[in-house]
């Protein structure tokens, strides 16, 4: 399989084989995209040209026999939200409500957008949580047709947040912090499901929630618990995970709580071919989305 991720102006990809239900990495590469490709116009007719320039490198690095392509794209390409829906509504009513909500949110962009949604595992609360993703129809069609023309099978496409979630999902309540260039992404879990995510900030040595989508109450509770942790506190009941060296003020924040957290290397669990030679400065955590896509392939 070929797993490709585009996030924060970087193209990262891996070619892997599944051998005895284990993933063997044949190649693992990262390329910084030039600035004109950071925020492409999703509804432009020229998008196919941009896609060609971006993806050709990954396709060239993949042997001809490999057909399956898995893709993970960031919020510049796919909008991803977690929305609450009244639990008492029937499935059709929930669907109608989400469509109605998204139509108002997207306004004039609604007719040219494709909407996908999936229900998050339900709990005892009165609300159901639904993961929704929106992508421009033009971008989706061009992606499919570009891969098919290149002789590949477009198997899987998802927002980068869901790829990240697969790498760190926990059964109990928990939060995972991912390095994202100069900022940090936080993913909040409960009962093995992603319930909320966003980009928190550090103010006066404490974490505060900025823009966040999903179960805010859960995110606030977890944030309070993490803030309350001290170096000599008893072991926490929540799972705290970090992926990559967190930047700036986050470094100190995490260092104070290092006794309570677990560092995750997203690609440490995979077997690597001898051909893979990563540069010394390469951060394994940058391949989190790629690792998430590879995990998707496992039964």
């Amino acid at each position, binding site marked *: 399989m070929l797993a490709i991720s585009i996030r924060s102006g970087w193209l990262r990809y891996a070619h892997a084989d599944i051998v005895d239900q284990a993933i063997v990495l044949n190649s693992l590469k990262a390329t910084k995209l030039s600035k004109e490709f950071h925020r492409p116009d999703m509804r432009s007719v020229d998008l196919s040209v941009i896609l060609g320039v971006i993806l050709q490198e990954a396709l060239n690095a993949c042997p001809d026999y490999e057909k399956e392509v898995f893709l993970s794209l960031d919020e510049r390409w796919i909008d991803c939200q977690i929305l609450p829906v009244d639990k008492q509504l029937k499935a059709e009513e929930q669907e109608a409500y989400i469509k109605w909500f998204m139509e108002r949110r997207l306004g004039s962009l609604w007719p040219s957008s494709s909407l996908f949604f*999936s229900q998050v595992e339900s709990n005892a609360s009165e609300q159901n949580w639904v993961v929704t993703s929106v992508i421009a129809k033009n971008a989706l069609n061009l992606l499919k047709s570009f891969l098919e023309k290149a002789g590949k099978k477009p*198997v*899987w496409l*998802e*927002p980068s947040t*869901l790829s990240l979630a697969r790498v760190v999902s926990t059964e109990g309540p928990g939060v995972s912090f991912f390095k994202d260039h100069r900022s940090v992404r936080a993913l909040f879990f409960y009962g093995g499901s992603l319930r909320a995510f966003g980009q928190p900030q550090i103010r006066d040595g404490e974490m505060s929630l900025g823009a966040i989508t999903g179960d805010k109450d859960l995110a606030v509770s977890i944030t309070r618990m993490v803030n309350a942790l001290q170096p000599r506190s008893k072991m926490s009941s929540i799972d705290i995970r970090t992926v990559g060296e967190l930047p700036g003020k986050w470094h100190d924040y995490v260092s104070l709580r290092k006794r309570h957290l677990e560092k995750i290397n997203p690609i440490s669990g995979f077997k690597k071919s001898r051909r893979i030679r990563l540069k010394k400065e390469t951060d394994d955590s940058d391949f989190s989305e790629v690792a998430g896509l590879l995990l998707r392939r496992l039964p």
Partner: protein
Amino acid sequence: MMAELNLFGKSGFQDHELMSDLKEGIDSTEKAMDDLKAESQQKKETILVKEEAPEPKKVLQQTKPKKKPKAKRKRKYSGHEVFSFLLSSAIIALVLWYFVLKKSIVSTVSEYLPRSFEVHQQNSDD
């Protein structure tokens, strides 16, 4: 259980049951590819049949030849076109005449020298 979304799949609600088994997804992609291949094969066949189709027509024409109704002859050029052609050729001819022929006439005119003028005058006086 993690929420899964495949944007290469169907839009709208995506069920857990469908999403949980990736193999099904791959199978459906394969099926779609097979369908596409079958469809393109079918199209090719229909095109071939269409190409072969004239033969029975020819047979029919041989058994019962039909006279085609004579189509009305259409004039190649309209009057307006003929008139504009004639006018333009006349203008071209005039221009040619002005620059070529008229110039040659002027060039044949000779000038009398003053002496020859005096001789001419004397002859006329006589």
